[in-house]
């Protein structure tokens, strides 16, 4: 899931300058789970906007705002409310914001910061899990990602900074390689230690990326 968090209200006010009528967009997927852009947050945002003297012309929570076709359809269903607005305030991850901005020439104000791809432990406690490297090594690392969880993204084992299983960069963090080693040992296999992993192919991450996967 994409973990996101609302921007400061101060920041939003700067972007809202001169915009009096706002249409609100939320997302029914990640932003709902993160409580940053679901039904509840959209209605709180509406209240806040009204308290700043603005008018909210309407709102919609799209099933998955990152789904470009679906986002387009939902905006068309709200054509008049969207048309009335000076700006659209979008409470989704960056992909959702761009899905909306691809359907309108109006000013789009993103209300969230996208933080990372991760998991929810409990509300407000998130763990970064994957850097979308496009060349997944989890099958050899007992399901623990060193690209994301090792402070240096090393691929062949721990650095010399590891101390008692803790990471050089932050002694409160477990060294990812210690965790990988321990789980591989419990599973009785060598995994990533059985071979020298060559330099990573970062070609999958070239920007801008265009992907057609079938």
């Amino acid at each position: 899931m994409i973990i996101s968090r609302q921007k400061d209200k101060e920041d939003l006010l700067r972007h809202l300058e001169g915009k009096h009528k706002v249409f609100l967009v939320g997302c029914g997927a990640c932003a709902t789970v993160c409580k940053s852009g679901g039904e509840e947050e959209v209605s709180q945002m509406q209240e806040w906007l009204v308290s700043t003297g603005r008018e909210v012309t309407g709102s919609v929570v799209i099933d998955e705002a990152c789904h470009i076709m679906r986002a387009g359809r939902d905006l068309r269903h709200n054509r008049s409310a969207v048309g009335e607005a000076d700006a659209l305030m979008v409470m989704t991850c960056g992909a959702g914001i761009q899905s909306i901005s691809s359907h309108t020439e109006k000013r789009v104000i993103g209300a969230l910061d996208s933080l990372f791809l991760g998991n929810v432990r409990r509300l407000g406690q998130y763990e970064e899990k994957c850097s979308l490297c496009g060349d997944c090594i989890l099958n050899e690392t007992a399901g623990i990602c060193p690209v994301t969880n090792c402070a240096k993204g090393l691929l062949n084992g721990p650095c010399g900074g590891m101390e008692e299983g803790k990471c050089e960069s932050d002694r409160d963090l477990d060294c990812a390689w210690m965790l990988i080693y321990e789980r591989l040992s419990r599973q009785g296999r060598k995994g990533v230690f059985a071979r020298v992993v060559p330099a990573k192919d970062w070609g999958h991450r070239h920007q801008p990326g265009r992907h057609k996967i079938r």
Partner: protein
Amino acid sequence: MSKLAEKLIAGEFVVTAEVAPPKGVDLDGVLATAACFPPEVVAVNVTDNQGANMRMAPLVVAALLHQGGVEPVLQMTCRDRNRMALQSDLLGAAAFGIKNLLLLSGDHPRFGDHPHARGVFDLDSVQLLQAADRLTAGQDLAGRPLAGSPAFFGGAAVSPQAEPFELMFQKFRKKVEAGARFFQTQAVFCEAPLTRFMEQAAPLRVPVLLGVLLLKNARMARFVHEHVPGVRVPEHLIDRLDGAADPLEEGVRIARETVRLARRHCQGVHLMTLGCEDRISEILC
């Protein structure tokens, strides 16, 4: 072939030491230090933004040492450069006649003097060893042929006392497989862990230079024990330094004993004397 490589291959006990490039452009200090090493010191490591603190490019300092008749070991870390920059620096080093390399991951930027820098780590130390090996074989990492190939003698670092032993050892093995031709160790002060490591390492048949750190006083010893990953200073040594009338003298004595330990188990020593280079002859005698 470098002198270091020759002597190690011939089975001679070798001694290396190290210098740090200046923070600034004044090279007098580092060149003077390097010039006064006793003849037993075969090669001198030049550190690469050690501790993630920005200093002059080690390639330049190593080239100057080489020109001045001091054989360098060029240290190179993966922290500050991607695979293209690393390879092009390696080719540049070869042009200056530099052969010995010590290839490292590098300390995390977080604790250096540019904590907001983005760490690169495009390669890790194992992959950088592979890259140097590939260059020596006449190819770059992408498999393209080189017009003239370098003749590197690539080394790596190991912490014989790091725990868990097996995890450290797996990485050590990978470094050998990736082309490490010699190792310099993190400081070790006692025999038992060293014996254990050297016994396991023996079948891999790669020379190991024991890291010998000059402890200047008890406070430093305690600090190293507590803060340097993979280094343990036994209590009895700290007590010795604590009780000594001249702690530095005692430190030199301890270093001398550690060199003797290395003579029994290892193929050489790497001396870390931190400004007390004038004591090296005593440490070696």
